[in-house]
């Protein structure tokens, strides 16, 4: 589904990705871990198409297309979803009307009729239940005055509504208490299917207690320095990241 080859990216003159390789197949859950500043969030941003990042080398193929050649909204309509580390607030725009616009943009791209108000509300209710999202929040302005945890849960609710093929969760677990963490993880597990892939970026192992990844990758200095299964995460939890930094790069 997704293949990243030798990806190099620069922001503000600093190279943040330095030849990253990664292959993600449908149905897989990949966890990406690594110390602060290793390039985890940069990877998410480049995949979502944030303009400030300049790709200087490498290729990204998504469903057989050149992902880097697509505008951010086209990527989104084609099933790439990013749960933001810091979701923005948009005052006055109701969560629901925003989602309706977004859902119908995606549907239009898929050559589907827009959802009727009734079907949309039905879907909204189902998804709210699925990811345990408070309906009062759904009717408020987009993220305005939401707590950190509420914002993160809104990201998962949006993900449920938009039903992406590839979901990238950028440190969704940061700043969440244990209950919120469980709800978020629960949502991801429910939405996971054999057609969908997840890239879960996290600094800590604890999210992986609830979401079991097929692969764990460790990112350091803009490259993946180690890949393994879920046991790698436990190993990291025990030893920290320093022991990996000292090892020579193998790719």
């Amino acid at each position, binding site marked *: 589904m997704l293949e990243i080859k030798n990806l190099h990216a620069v922001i503000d003159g600093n190279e943040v990705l330095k030849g990253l390789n990664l292959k993600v197949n449908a149905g897989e859950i990949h966890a990406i871990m690594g110390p602060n500043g290793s390039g985890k969030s940069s990877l998410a941003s480049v995949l*979502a*198409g*944030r*303009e*400030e990042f300049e790709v200087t080398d490498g290729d990204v193929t998504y469903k057989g297309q050149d992902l880097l050649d697509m*505008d*951010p*909204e086209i*990527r*989104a*309509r084609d099933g790439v*979803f*990013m749960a*933001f580390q810091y*979701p*923005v607030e*948009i*005052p*006055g*725009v*109701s969560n629901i009307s*925003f*989602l309706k*616009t*977004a859902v119908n*943009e*995606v549907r239009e*791209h898929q050559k589907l009729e827009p959802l009727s108000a009734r079907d949309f509300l039905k879907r909204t209710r189902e998804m709210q239940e699925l990811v345990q999202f408070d309906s009062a929040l759904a009717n408020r*302005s*987009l993220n305005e005055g939401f707590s950190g945890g509420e914002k993160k849960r809104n990201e998962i609710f*949006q993900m449920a509504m*938009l039903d992406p093929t590839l979901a990238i969760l950028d440190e969704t677990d940061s700043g969440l208490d244990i209950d919120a963490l469980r709800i978020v993880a629960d949502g991801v597990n429910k939405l996971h299917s054999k057609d969908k892939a997840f890239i879960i970026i996290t600094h800590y192992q604890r999210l992986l207690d609830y979401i079991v990844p097929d692969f764990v990758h460790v990112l350091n200095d803009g490259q993946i320095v180690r890949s393994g299964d879920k046991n790698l995460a436990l190993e990291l939890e025990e030893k920290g990241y320093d022991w990996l930094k000292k090892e020579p790069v193998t790719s």
Partner: protein
Amino acid sequence: MRTENEIIDDFTTREYEHGFVTDIDMDILPPGLNEEVVAFISAKKEEPEWLLEWRMKGYQAFLKSKMPEWQNFKAPDVDFQGISYYAAPKDQPKYDSLDEVDPELLRTYERLGIPLEEQKLLAGVAVDAVFDSVSIATTYKEELGKLGIIFCSMSEAVKNHPELVRKYLGTVVPYSDNIYASLNSAVFSDGSFVYIPEGVRCPMELSTYFRINAQNTGQFERTLIIAEKDSYVSYLEGCTAPQRDENQLHAAVVELVAMEGAEIKYSTVQNWFPGDEEGKGGIYNFVTKRGICKGDRSKISWTQVETGSSITWKYPSVILKGDDSVGEFYSVAVTKGKQIADTGTKINHIGKNTKSRIISKGISAGYSNNSYRGLVQIGKGAHKARNFTQCDSLLIGNRCGAHTFPYIESRNKTAMLEHEATTSKIGEDQIFYLNQRGIDPEKAVALIVNGYAKEVLSKLPMEFAVEAKKLLALTLEGSVG
């Protein structure tokens, strides 16, 4: 300089009127402004003498007035002698079919979702019998007439209800108010007149739209709305479709009078030609709008969505004379390109327990400058008067400007005034967030802006609000990136 009386005498005794009669078929008066022009307009409209005298006073006041200098932009040099002050109402359709109309204009109509028959009306195309604006107007007029409501053009009002016009004309905006109001008093072409009798609640939104024929009244309209005791009226000004007016100066005057317990709601969606990208052309929208809450417990609210004109310079105001009267001002002003807006309101609290609420939302893009200017005056007798002001500015890009000039003059210690102001920028982050959800940049900006202006848009009558939202999106198209 001659005195007022001398001039008026001159005009009422001279023989020029007959001289003008032969010219009465002409459609447009040659450019220029002098006493003869004023007299010509009055004669052409067969006005009573008192109105001619009043126009002459306006003209004299105009001659004595100076251009204001306090505004936050360089006032353009308007060549008052270069303007033609009278053009006969155009009875003839401009075009025979839509094919002859500027395609760009039609595209805009289409995107605003205006039905085809309406597009024809707006563009000035002859309409068939299916949708005859005249008959529609007549139907409504009959219905309103049963309630005793008068809704007609100012010219008709002068002819049919001279006592009402004479009683109220210039009582809220005197002919000497400011240079543009004086000019308007001297040369006003037409406008709307509304009278709501005591205890009557006007059953429909009154709009100039229903008087399509009088739409091309030109640059100097004069509107007068009188709401008698315990009556209610909602008035919509202009239409949301772009009026590609070739005229430069638009100097209208609007006067509102609300008696005891009456309420007047006045909504404007203004979308005149803003000039090209270089800032050439466009309308100077210099309008004087003022209402008086004359009676106790009366209420006046102004709601405006200003997106067009090269310069918008106006301060719809309320004089709160009656005790417990309420004044409101809700405004969204959008500027882009090289547009300028210097707009806001003036609320004059005179009566006890008077309340006012000001919500102003400025949106600037491109190289434009957007100023909010507001004055809240609390008079000595305005015990326990209250004002709440909120003015927010939203910037798109980093070459535009937003300015806020709030003034407060309070002469009563029991008054309570609150003022809040914010400035924010549409962030790349906000746009990217929406992009990441499949929404393109244009739509993203439209969503953000509509959210920002929601509090004001919600004050507009529903159909108007829908079109205003589309208009905001359309106006800001191409402002990002």
